[in-house]
């Protein structure tokens, strides 16, 4: 029983009950997601559908799976961009790709690719370094809506000045505009860049290992999780890396909570780029 529960205690209880219901009904387990962001998304959704209590979502989600899936989609409202954190792409180009070049065949995994800008940035890098045709890129997310956007590769034209700026800071020498076709108020990424990419649904919480990757990009996905879940996801990622494979996580993320830290050496700790030790 709750001792004279505060407003906050009650809300937490309601959220737990809601997540229980969701897990039992749909198999999605959000219990170990970072609660503060989760409650924001839930509150936002409640405002949209005009429900006053968190627990009021339970009957809705139990009986209306379309409503639930709209909620899942809203969880991943994210803003991503091409060449986010240009310094990271610069180091990938200068220090990681030269190593990858020495392999006959290269496997790269973008875990949590969102709407795909990061994937196409990588493809551009690989193309410019002359190894795209030797690469197989896997781009995964647990959100089908995001995956569809990623596959289409169509982005608002208003973002291109930011992309171009990032690209230059990342050491890009060509015209970024050559990699897409401009339409009215959008751009469409050239199909050439998607040739080596496989888009697939993968949930880092419930799905398994993805074999023998030379490079895993998992940036700004761990921030969704609490420490325990971060550790689990990172273990899965580590198990997916081949010996001497590279890992890149988000600039503001940490490996501190994970035992995989012991299996990795720094390429650049500041930029969160690591390399797996040999076995």
């Amino acid at each position, binding site marked *: 029983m709750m001792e004279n529960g505060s407003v906050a205690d009650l809300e937490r209880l309601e959220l737990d009950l809601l997540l229980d219901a969701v897990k039992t009904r749909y198999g999605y387990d959000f219990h170990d997601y*970072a609660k*503060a962001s989760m409650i924001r998304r839930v509150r936002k959704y409640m405002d949209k559908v005009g429900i006053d209590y968190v627990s009021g979502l339970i009957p809705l989600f139990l009986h209306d799976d379309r409503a639930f899936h709209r909620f899942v989609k809203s969880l991943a409202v*994210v*803003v991503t961009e091409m060449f986010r954190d240009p310094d990271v792409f610069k180091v990938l180009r200068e220090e990681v790709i030269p190593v990858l070049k020495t392999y006959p065949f290269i496997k790269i995994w973008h875990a949590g690719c969102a709407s795909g800008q990061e994937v196409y940035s990588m493809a551009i890098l690989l193309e410019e370094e002359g190894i795209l045709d030797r690469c197989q890129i896997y781009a995964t997310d647990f959100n089908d809506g995001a995956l569809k956007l990623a596959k289409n590769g169509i982005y608002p034209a208003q973002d291109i000045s930011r992309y171009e700026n990032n690209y230059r800071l990342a050491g890009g020498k060509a015209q970024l505009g050559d990699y897409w076709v401009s339409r009215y108020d959008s751009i469409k990424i050239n199909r050439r860049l998607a040739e080596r990419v496989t888009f697939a649904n993968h949930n880092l919480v419930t799905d398994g290992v993805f074999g023998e990757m030379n490079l895993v990009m998992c940036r700004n996905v761990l*921030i969704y999780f609490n420490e325990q879940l971060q550790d689990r996801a990172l273990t899965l990622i580590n198990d997916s890396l081949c010996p001497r494979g590279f890992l890149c996580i988000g600039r503001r993320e940490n490996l501190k909570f994970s035992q995989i830290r012991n299996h990795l050496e720094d390429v650049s700790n500041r930029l969160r780029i690591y390399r797996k030790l040999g076995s």
Partner: protein
Amino acid sequence: MSSVAVEKKPRAVVLGASAGGINALGFLFSELREDFSLPILVTKHVGLNDDRGMLRVLARQSVLPVRVAKDKYRIQAGAIYLAPADYHMLVEGQGVISLNLEEPVAHSRPSIDVLFQSAARVYGQELVAVVLTGANRDGADGIRTVKHFGGTTVAQCPENAEIGLMPRASLDTGCVDYLMTLEEISAFLDQIGA
């Protein structure tokens, strides 16, 4: 203003600042004592690549450690955490910071509302929230939530602020407990952090 009654000894302070905020924060930090006993979480609107500059300026003026927050940092008493550029900073239940990349709130990322609303849920009555100078409305919704969860709310006097718009917007919610000048805020922090 002599001393202020706070219901319960606070466990944390959250500060929000925008335009003019570096000076205001610099002043407050320079007045803090070494044995200040609470964590201070700060969301100051900052340009895409400017958080290192902000850190450098503010760290110089504080005897307490100042850090740009990273995901899942453990919040420590007597330390100051700044929201990083381009991420929202939130407080999790276990006294841990988390970051997210949700869309901007009140046109801002990091947003003061996001910090305040998450901290309100964790610290309830044991939170002090302060809105400082700025030229937008961020923080007002946050102040409302802090009040709703029983915390103590403070706005800098608009006339005393470099730009009064932001504290004024908070004031207009009717949820501000105390209106203070920067000097009074400093004295207040000294009192609650002793």
